[in-house]
């Protein structure tokens, strides 16, 4: 490396990172089981994937990526003691999260209209488990982001450890989607 930059400390609390590693391993096990089952029933999975909407999927991916960008931006602004601007960045991230929720519920509505449920077939068991499980994590994450955003606006709140931990949690949720999206939507 050109500049031997000084080593910075881990952003956020180790306790949160233990949770992040646990969540990532759960999703890894689910992804691997998905891949194996796809090879066992290739046409079932192919037909299942035809019901999905890649365009909606890509809007979701971009929304989550943008949310992650604004969360990271908010952390930077927070470190530069610009709490007010950090709060605005965080609320923007939350709004992108809401875009995700809207598009995701639209997608589920399409599937419910076709009477496709959790036990319809093996593909949709995986689809619903993976995406709903991820959705619940996003909802929990949005709750945390709203908490931080409101704290930033109101008092002289200065908790870098909590701020960075919540940001790392959100990035983990985005990382999971980054892997989930090509697997479920693109590779058919």
């Amino acid at each position: 490396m050109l500049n031997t930059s000084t080593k910075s400390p881990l952003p956020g609390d180790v306790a949160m990172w233990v949770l992040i590693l646990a969540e990532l391993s759960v999703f890894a096990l689910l992804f691997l089981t998905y891949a194996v089952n796809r090879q066992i029933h290739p046409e079932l999975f192919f037909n299942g994937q035809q019901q999905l909407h890649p365009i909606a999927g890509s809007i979701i991916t971009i929304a989550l990526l943008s949310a992650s960008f604004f969360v990271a931006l908010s952390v930077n602004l927070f470190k530069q003691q610009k709490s007010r601007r950090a709060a605005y960045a965080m609320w923007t991230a939350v709004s992108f999260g809401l875009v995700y929720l809207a598009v995701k519920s639209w997608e589920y509505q399409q599937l419910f209209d076709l009477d496709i449920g959790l036990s319809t077939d093996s593909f949709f068991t995986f689809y619903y488990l993976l995406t709903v499980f991820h959705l619940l994590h996003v909802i929990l994450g949005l709750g945390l982001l709203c908490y931080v955003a409101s704290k930033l606006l109101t008092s002289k709140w200065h908790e870098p450890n909590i701020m960075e931990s919540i940001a790392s949690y959100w990035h983990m949720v985005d990382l999971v989607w980054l892997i989930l999206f090509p697997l479920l939507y693109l590779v058919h």
Partner: protein
Amino acid sequence: MKFQSQAVAKPYFIAAIVLFIGQIIFGLVMGLQYVIGDFLFPAIPFNVARMVHTNLLIIWLLFGFMGSAYYLIPEESETELYSPKLAIALFWIFLAAGVLTIIGYLAVPYATLAHITGNDLLPTMGREFLEMPTITKVGIVIVALGFLFNIGMTVLKGRKTAISMIMIMGQVGLAVFFLFSFYNPENLILDKIFWWWVVHLWVEGVWELIMGSILAFVLIKTTGVDREIIEKWLYMIIAMALITGILGTGHHYFWIGAPEYWQLIGSVFSAMEPIPFFMMTLFAFNMVNQRRREHPNKAAVLWALGTAVMAFLGAGVWGFLHTLAPVNYFTHGTQITAAHGHMAFYGAYVMIVLTMISYSMPMMRGRAAANSKASQTVEMWSFWLMTVAMVFITLFLTGAGILQIFLQRMGDSPQNFMVVQERIQIFYWLREAAGVMFFIGLMTYVASFFVKGKEATLKG
């Protein structure tokens, strides 16, 4: 002992050990019935011996947990127990309910016991681990409420530490999930699904909180490591325990009629269940390595480390052995399940209660911190005898299970259950021998309480 009222735990621990002996005696009876089919038939048929064995286990572990709480909470809250008299009263009520139930199992046929105790009013009997009459179940709930009130009031008026809060959460969880034993629907499948809310959410949920808080308490006292570090680790361990354990219930829903998505959820989450036990082993060894003092009670430290390792082996490794759905399809309802059951119960819950007894009993019997060198040596002998015997029991039952699966479930000409049981008799003989070894270990453990000698001094 900092507070006089902690001595209330003494009768609980004594009752626990006595009932433990009873449990192992009936374990030996059953072990013999596996190899000599008509042993004690029809006086004590296998199902009666089994009820006594499993219910004694649960009763004496509950005695152990309550005793541990009565010893731990006052010291953690730095105040006297709210009402020692209530604790003693509850002790006698619980002991009476337990002993009467066991006598009921042995004295009259089960159907008669059900009739006498009015099971028809609210039928909750006849289910594994919950065979006790409905009135005994009500008695247990009353004792639990009184117990929770007692320790709750103690904590309220005293210092609130993570350890005492986690102990209370575990005990409250235990009481709350026990209430599901009153739900016995006519639909067998619904009955089974919510039966697991009692059994699984106990042993892979709230009991891990109780176990964690006892282990943390003993480690703080024996190693002198800073409370902040120990409580941080404790929170992480029980967080992982509940995160993986709650959805881990799915590994019981594979073949009992529940939808098939449970095969995926159950396998994935229960595959992660060994992690909290692995963290607990790291935690125990780390704290002992970083100890700031040499505690004279070497036996208690050995029990604490042994608990962490055996819990990881029995509940973690042996659990993972048969938790994935494709594997469980063949091992479900075979001796593999029994092997896991034995080592998990001993490694996780029997040993943690013995750890607490080993740590607290010397002080409740008037010594400063530990028994004599001689007594501790005998106790350590009993530790190794019982633990090694349990490893053998588990290995022999695993062997029996593997052969059973091979003969009864695999291949194109699977054999009949009873024929297979004949073919695997050798493992049952070996298991009975290991059971006798365990019993010797238990007798050694009891003997260690009566070994005299000068008290080991408090060094450093």
